[in-house]
């Protein structure tokens, strides 16, 4: 929780890059929301609005070689990693030009060229697979790292335990990143999790573990850079718990009744996006015209991707016989 005194600090370029990734996530999220609301997309949508700092900061340190395994709430993780938006949109629209030809949908988006290896809808299951990718990275003698994203609720399932133990034993280049948004579906963190800080569980695996303010890019930057360096240098995994909040509830349409009075409003007041934007400007890391141009560019990219996705053809029905195995199914 305390940062090492020699913690690396982000320069203006890094901060601007992190902001760009956040903005891309948020603008894309906004477009998805409005498209669903217009009835032009049908899909269960697990927005991560409010959590942008986490994948944006992490992705700042990643290249296309580095890989992620993420979850149903992971569109932000892909967008942060600069996955192209066109095939993303075609996929969530269930079209043939989607990353997965419309077969996977939003909960199973995959895009190996940018390192998006697995998106899972099963709580906890990103972690065991991330280990395997990290094992491969080690066998390859590469310096690539693997990020396993998972929620706070997921820290209570068996796969978490088995994965952290194995990763530590095998010194795998994997970082376990938990955006702790305080809720697992409708269950408050403390009603599902027996420890006050998930990072404490790292002790049980002889692994470094930290709780970071996941809405603070500076804190995130320091911890992530350390964890990534550890992983790349073959020193093994790190558990990062990043505190945050999800503004749109569990799934789009959530009534948020399980939240405390005023809790959501208070969280929204601390929306990291405008706060970070203002601070970037205030501290002179970037100027307004640059940010405006950035936003314009992103919005154009998102609009183009949306139009592309919605204009893409429906997949042919015989797609259900393909990709079950390498060889097409009979009958």
């Amino acid at each position: 929780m305390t940062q090492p005194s020699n913690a690396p600090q982000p320069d203006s370029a890094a901060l601007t890059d992190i902001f760009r990734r956040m903005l891309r996530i948020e603008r894309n999220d906004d477009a998805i929301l409005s498209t669903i609301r217009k009835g032009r997309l049908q899909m269960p949508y697990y927005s991560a609005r409010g959590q942008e700092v986490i994948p944006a900061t992490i992705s700042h340190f990643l290249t296309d070689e580095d890989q992620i395994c993420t979850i149903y709430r992971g569109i932000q993780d892909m967008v942060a990693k600069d996955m192209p938006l066109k095939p993303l949109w075609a996929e969530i629209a269930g079209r043939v030009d989607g990353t997965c030809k419309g077969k996977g949908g939003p909960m199973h988006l995959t895009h190996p060229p940018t390192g998006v290896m697995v998106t899972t809808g099963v709580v906890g299951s990103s972690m065991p697979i991330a280990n395997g990718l990290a094992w491969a990275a080690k066998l390859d003698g590469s310096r690539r790292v693997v990020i396993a994203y998972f929620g706070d609720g997921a820290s209570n399932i068996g796969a978490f335990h088995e994965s952290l133990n194995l990763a530590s034993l095998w010194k795998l280049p994997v970082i376990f990143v938990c955006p702790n948004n305080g809720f697992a579906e409708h269950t408050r963190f403390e009603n599902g999790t027996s420890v006050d800080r998930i990072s404490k569980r790292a002790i049980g695996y002889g692994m470094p573990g930290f709780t970071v303010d996941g809405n603070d890019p500076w804190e995130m930057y320091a911890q992530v850079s350390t964890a990534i360096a550890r992983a790349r240098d073959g020193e093994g995994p790190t558990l990062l718990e990043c505190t945050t909040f999800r503004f749109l509830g569990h799934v789009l349409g959530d009534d948020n009744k399980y939240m405390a009075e005023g809790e959501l409003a208070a969280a929204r007041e601390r929306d990291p996006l405008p706060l970070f934007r203002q601070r970037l400007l205030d501290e002179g890391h970037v100027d307004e015209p640059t940010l405006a141009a950035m936003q314009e560019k992103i919005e154009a990219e998102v609009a183009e991707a949306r139009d592309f996705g919605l204009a893409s053809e429906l997949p042919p029905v015989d797609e259900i016989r393909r990709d079950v195995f390498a060889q097409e199914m009979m009958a």
Partner: protein
Amino acid sequence: MSTTTTSAAKPAGTSKMNSLQAVNAALHQAMAADDKVLVLGEDIADPEGGGVTGATAGLSTKFGGERVRSTPISEQAIIGAAIGAALAGYKPVAEIMLMNFTTVAMDMIFNHAAKLRFMSGGQTSVPITIRTLTGAGWQTAGQHADHLEGWYAHAAGIKVVAPSNPVDYKGLLLSCIDDPDPCIFIESAGSLFVPAEVPDDQGPIPLGKARIVQEGSDLTIVTWSSQTVRAQMALPALAEAGLSVELIDLRTISPWDRETVLASVRKTGRLLVAHEAVRDFGPGAEIAATVSEELFGVLKAPVRRLGAPKCPVPFAKVLEDAYIVQPDQMVAVAQALMG
């Protein structure tokens, strides 16, 4: 052995509800009747909204937080807690949100819940009910919609129940809870919101007994769960095609009602089994194999099976629709069976 459905006009002392509401009613009734009944699962208590679908709404408020407990996301721990409490004389109803997530708890279900009575030589028993939801149609894609009743039906020591309408949801859930052995109670996307009149005093409906939805003489169709709903949609077209169809809702998959099915096919000479699960090595194979063996020489045509193709549930609506056995496919196969 089997009951025939009555018509749809609202009788006195009934309430219109969908299957979800019927589940809720059954749980309320069971908990009120027997204080050994417990309910546990993710988000199932009222502070968490009474379940994401609301199936368990009101229970914790009424029966208290000790008997109705929201759990962490820990399916092994959920089933384990249910088993342990059952060994000590309770009747826990555990919810596993979706059937695909039962795989996470498969050791607890298959190696423990289903086997402890036998392995202990009858000294202990595990009267738990596992409620779980599944089915394609909601575009939840590959990991949220599989019908795995065939797996559970292959397992010794656990009963498998898959109702299709609110009356059966209520009556069969009550029976599962009462049953001295573990039951898996499968709620399905395609049947969850279909409303019906349910008698206010609806009590348990026996496990292992099929329901004849419609009598007929040309052809027997055996279905369950969402597929009964789809078969009912096919009935008008079948009638129009001049086919007298006997539609059987199996309701309990294991143990299944061989007598009712065999009696029906003995009469009609033709059988179509249609389920939402994957066809290949699916539960329909047992029924087809049994009927083919028992009624060899009696059958007028080969037993036909309809089920999902052997692929994960696809996301795109157009593919998902192609994945699910549709009413028109049943009509086509039924006509083909008539030769």
